[in-house]
């Protein structure tokens, strides 16, 4: 027990780090679900593409293993490139794989999403020859920059990930609650027809939702690369699955719920390791999900819909 207590602070830090990445990714699932009521299974692969774009930029800017520019500039370039690339990708997926299916049965977009997921994974596999790519995080963030607090060691990378994620989440929350576009998004997700009556071009709003969600996935990909210091073409699937779980846990379609769900999931995963063998940490995650849904059918922050007869 003492050993568990001693590890607790460190696991909180680990949980928050992973949880904030899950949360960023969960936002994309949740926003799309809120507006289109569809599960965008390709989102995890968009995240994987973001990680590779970040790696590509890093690779370009480190000829011969030396940084060609200030580390902050490189980090910024990686993040921006990944966000731009993934948002374009997300927009294209929406346009070509989902928009034509908007009036068909609910399962059709699901299969289309799976098809996109297979395409992205295999394209990445072909382009990387199936090999993992190393992220030279140490060139960008010195590994000996650490903060000790309450028995936990917090590396600069983790601090950066938590900080950037929280900043992005606050920015998104602000945008969705305060800007006209955000209000238009919420209006579209609550009642698309009434939103059209207000003069809102809902097709554009839906496209914007994909762009924003995908950009968040892109930067999350870069961060996960910096954290694990390597990326490969299969990271999209499991990360996507967990982020999706986080979105449902929080109440899918609810933006704050997705953030809360991501953090809860990250923490559950880290704490779980304290009690059971590490191989079961994913099982803990899913057990938490099932228990939550059975007890609270619409997720932590979701609202149960009532049907009118």
């Amino acid at each position, binding site marked *: 027990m003492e050993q568990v207590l001693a590890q607790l602070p460190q696991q909180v830090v680990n949980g928050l780090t992973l949880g904030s990445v899950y949360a960023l990714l969960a936002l994309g699932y949740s926003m799309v679900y809120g507006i289109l009521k569809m599960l965008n299974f390709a989102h995890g692969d968009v995240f994987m593409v973001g990680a590779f774009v970040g790696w590509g930029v890093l690779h370009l800017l480190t000829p011969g293993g030396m940084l060609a520019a200030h580390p902050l500039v490189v980090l910024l370039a990686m993040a921006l490139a990944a966000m731009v690339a993934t948002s374009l990708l997300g927009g294209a997926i929406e346009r070509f794989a989902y928009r034509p299916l908007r009036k068909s049965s609910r*399962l059709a977009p699901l299969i289309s999403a799976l*098809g996109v997921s297979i395409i992205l994974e*295999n394209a990445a596999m072909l382009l990387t020859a199936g090999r993992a790519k190393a992220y030279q995080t140490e060139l960008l963030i010195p590994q000996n920059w650490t903060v000790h607090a309450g028995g936990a060691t917090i590396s600069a990378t983790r601090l950066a990930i938590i900080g950037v994620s929280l900043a992005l989440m606050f920015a998104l929350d602000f945008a969705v609650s305060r800007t006209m576009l955000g209000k238009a998004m919420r209006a579209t997700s609550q009642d698309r027809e009434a939103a059209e009556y*207000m003069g809102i071009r809902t097709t554009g709003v839906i496209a914007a939702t994909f762009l924003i969600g995908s950009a968040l996935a892109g930067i999350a990909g870069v961060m996960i690369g910096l954290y694990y210091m390597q990326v490969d073409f299969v990271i999209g699937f499991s990360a996507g699955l967990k982020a999706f*779980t986080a979105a449902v846990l929080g109440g899918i379609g609810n933006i704050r719920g997705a953030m809360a769900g991501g953090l809860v999931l990250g923490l559950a995963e880290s704490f779980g390791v304290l009690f059971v063998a590490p191989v079961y940490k994913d099982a803990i995650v899913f057990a938490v999900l*099932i228990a939550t849904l059975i007890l609270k059918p619409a997720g932590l922050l979701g609202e149960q819909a009532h049907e009118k007869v």
Partner: protein
Amino acid sequence: MCRFTEVLTIARSYKGMQRSMKRQDMPAKSKTPCKPVSIPPDEGMGSTEWTSARATERVLRSLPVATAVYPALAVLVLVPLFARNYYYLRAGGSCGLYLILALGLNIVAGEAGLLDLGYVAFYGIGAYVYALLSSPQFGLHAPFLLSATCSVLAAVSAAVLVSVPTLHLRGDYLAMVTLGFGQIVRILLNNLDRPVNITNGPNGIVGVDAPNIFGVSFASLEMSYVLIWVVAAGVAIVVSRVTRSKIGRAWAAIREDEVAAACMGVDVARYRVMAFSWGAGLAGLAGALLASWQRAVFPQNFTMTETIAVYCMIILGGMRSLPGVMVGPLVLVILPELLRAYSVYRMLIYGVALVLLVVYRPQGLLPAGASISVPIRRLRRAARRVPDMESSTGAAQAPARGTPGPERRPTDTPLFAGIVVTSPAQDAVQNAKPFREVALEVKGVVCKFGGLVAVSDVSLTVRQGEVVGIIGPNGAGKTTLFNLITGIAKPFSGDIRVFGEDISSMPPYKIAALGVARTFQNIRLFDSQSVLENVLAGCHLRLPGGLPGIILRTRAFRAHEASEIVRAKGAVNFFGPELAAKENAPVNSLTYPDRRRVELARALAAGPRILLLDEPTAGMTPEEAGDVVEEIRLLRESGYTVLVIEHHMDVVADTCDRVIVLDHGEKIAEGTPAEVASNPEVMQAYLGAPSASGGAAELVADRLVGPAGSGRRIATQQEGSDKPFMESVLELRGVHSSYGAVRALQGVDLQVNTGEIVVVLGSNAAGKSTMLKTILGGVRPSSGHIIFMGRRIDALPTSEIARAGIAIVPEGRRIFPGLTVLENLELGGYVLQNRRAIAQSIERVFELFPALAERRGQRAGTLSGGEQQMLAISRALVASPKLICMDEPSMGLAPILVDRVMQAILDINRAGMTVLLVEQNARAALAIADRAYILRSGRVVASGAASDFLEDETVARAYLS
């Protein structure tokens, strides 16, 4: 009344001759002998023309299953005879396993509509149970049949374990639980080698026994291939029989509409668990076969990717279609093999193919068509074998001829289509009683939703054989009362008894079993099903459900099923040969009145002891409504106990023995139609409160224009007009449009000028709302022009029409409930694209509606109905539009609030706004309007100065008598 008789006459000439003839000798109130009202089965089917046409169609329809599927299965089973290639047999065997999986998943996801993302877990459980029982792992070498049975049982138990606690979860949430379950099972299989070695972890279990059934070994590749395909073929046959039985129809019903399914007597929870169990059981069986086929099991056989692969198979092949589900695995196992030539690119191509297939063929390669393939001859033969069928056919006719007189009413389960459950003797006993048994008793029932009291202390009694009408303005609690009687809503207090049995805490399916059947206000059919399948769903409780019968299709089972099919056909035939000719058409292809008929036929097929009809004439033309009146009267003559909600007073007057009037959840009057019509309180409820006075306006319209009037008489002069001469803001020229199957607008001409309030009146479903939807681009006109400010807008998307300067206060308000009042208003000003302009506009609106200003931070969904209506009007104002359209702003509001809303409309009009108002509350609307149009059945039947319509004090009386 007079007008209605005319209508009936017209209706009669439209309808089939047979029934019109009957109506001739049956004067209005039907005090004459009853004739058999419908075609007995033998007569109907004896018609050679009918039989041969049907039979041909049936043969064609059943073609894929009988002539394509079974030979294909036979060929596939026999592949090893002519192909001894190891590689082909390997691929073929795995294809067979996928077929079993696809058939199972098709039940869960296709038939029952449950998104199971952990499906492969059951496959894994089956495979590992087999491997543990028949391998050196624990040294157990149980025989194949025992191990395989255990596999199936283990998978089914797991399915029950997952589905029972999650019965309250819907759609995607259920999907997530199954996904989590699937992942947990995979993780367990992968890691249960420590601390105790059970599954051998990632290494899997090898050396699994080959199948050996009664001494026959299936160890060779060819033999195990044959075993897999024989099982797969057997599964295909069983699944096709189960899905075409009552069980399959119950699954389809819960997939399409759980509420309607429960009202047909389907125990939704039980059938849901059953669907999960069937799917899991088949997956478990496939697992056992997999283990014995590859002689080993590995955790990586059961990943999420496998679930996805099986989904792709059934969706691409065509969900719910047996040929489709068979083609899916073939294509998806073979496609990657064919692409092997492209080595590394094959999965990429596969992904692209998947997206393209779904985008261009979302319904699958061989989509399901509606069919119940029972050849007609077999049906007749089977039906003859049922003894009580024959006698009941006789029973239907004998007493009808034998016992004339107004009191004659068959009891218990009444007849139609020559099928009667009661005996003539029973009938006679019932006839002797002057007062019949109480069928339904509602005592002091209260029902609340949140803070709203929908039904307040209502009591009523319905005796057997009575037809009781329930009328009342919108929001009076009529449908809620039906929901209480059918168990969809639960009373807060009070007592409801059906034939003496207390049902206030019974689930809907049990109430249905007591003999309560209903139709719904917004038709709730099972849309992907055919007419006959829908009606057969109504026979749910009458059909045999025993699995052995369904799977073996025993003689007794077939006879029983055939008799129910005859019964269902009889229910369809009740509505005339036109509908019977469409019995195999999917219901979503039917016209609106036909859809209503199918819903009624479905309720009738259940053989109900109490029939609840919720607005059976809503959305119908007077001619079609006339047909419904005739149908209800036929039901009454056949002895049905009917409770009918109606808006049309003439329908009520012509069909009901007794009328109950509800207003704001309370019963305000009860009596014969004539008594109720002259009750001043009732008139007050209708005229002071919203709705229904549209009918009055119609009568005024008739008076103004005359029955043969051409329909258009525009009075352009304004009384007391201090307004300048106006120019046209909006003009509709000959607009036709249809909404779903309803031909809603049929050549509407209408003009709105600057500064006017123009009101469009009409009864329910006269086309008023569709007209507004058409103006706003929600429905496209099929012909005609819509001109706004000199510009055609009929091809623009809704958002562009809004930007051009038309705002709407939609029906049912449609505020954004999760947003605050202020945010709702800001979105109202979205088109202004300028924060300051929006803020200024909102301030002006707050001056008009100070109550909203106080609540600016409150979530709009928490406002009261009246406040929400004010918000909807304000929201439309913020954009400073050139025209505001309002769709029934008074609906569901108390009279005092109606006055407030009307006053608000007048205020904003005085401030210079042009208003196009659609209303049912004629009096309130006419009081504030400049001009009025009367819409009926999608046509403008009258127009003129509002004051002309208003002056007439006889409107109300004319409407109610």
